[in-house]
């Protein structure tokens, strides 16, 4: 079975804290993605990675960075959390290039920044 896991379902942090969101997939997929989902704005792509140590900026990379040291793990980092980063964060993975037919999502992490 396909499996994408995220380190936390719910997270509460304070403004200015450094936040790490971890995502792990067990399907040996090349591609991994981080999105955020906000009411009325749909899903927006933050970053994605198509190989170890490779990354591409998505639609809204400002205030975020990512790390892909191992193929199965893709981390999203908020260097200094701000209240406007309160959101649902979704990780996804896919097997081949961007033309893949299947992109699998994790359960999401609901982050609240106070």
């Amino acid at each position, binding site marked *: 079975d396909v499996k994408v896991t995220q380190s936390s379902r719910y997270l509460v942090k304070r403004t200015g804290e450094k936040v790490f969101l971890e995502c792990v997939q067990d399907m040996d997929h090349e591609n991994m993605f981080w999105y955020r989902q906000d009411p009325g704005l749909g*899903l927006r792509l933050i970053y994605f990675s198509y190989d170890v140590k490779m990354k591409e900026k998505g639609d809204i990379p400002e205030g975020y960075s990512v790390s892909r040291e191992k193929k199965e793990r893709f981390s999203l980092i908020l260097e200094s959390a701000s209240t406007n980063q309160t959101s649902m964060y979704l990780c996804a993975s896919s097997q081949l290039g961007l033309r893949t*037919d299947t992109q699998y999502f994790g359960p999401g992490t609901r982050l609240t920044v106070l």
Partner: protein
Amino acid sequence: EDKVVQSPLSLVVHEGDTVTLNCSYEVTNFRSLLWYKQEKKAPTFLFMLTSSGIEKKSGRLSSILDKKELFSILNITATQTGDSAIYLCAYLSRGGGSNYKLTFGKGTLLTVNP
């Protein structure tokens, strides 16, 4: 400005009905159009369409892309109550520099009554 518009915003049908959901887009550097189904948790990937006029089919669901007229439709035949969800349309495009952009519409809320 790139955008994607879905219609209708919401739809209520009875089990067994056939529904057609619409997605129109205006975008430069278009690569692919994607459909997702979202229930209470993270969205589930349905289809990725890159070529015009080629129908993709999965069970009772099918979708097709018209790159000339810049729209896509998602058809669901013999609807069931389990089809009730928000259906999201998104396009993948490449902006300036190294940024990829995945832009979602606001979704169509489908309710299937028994």
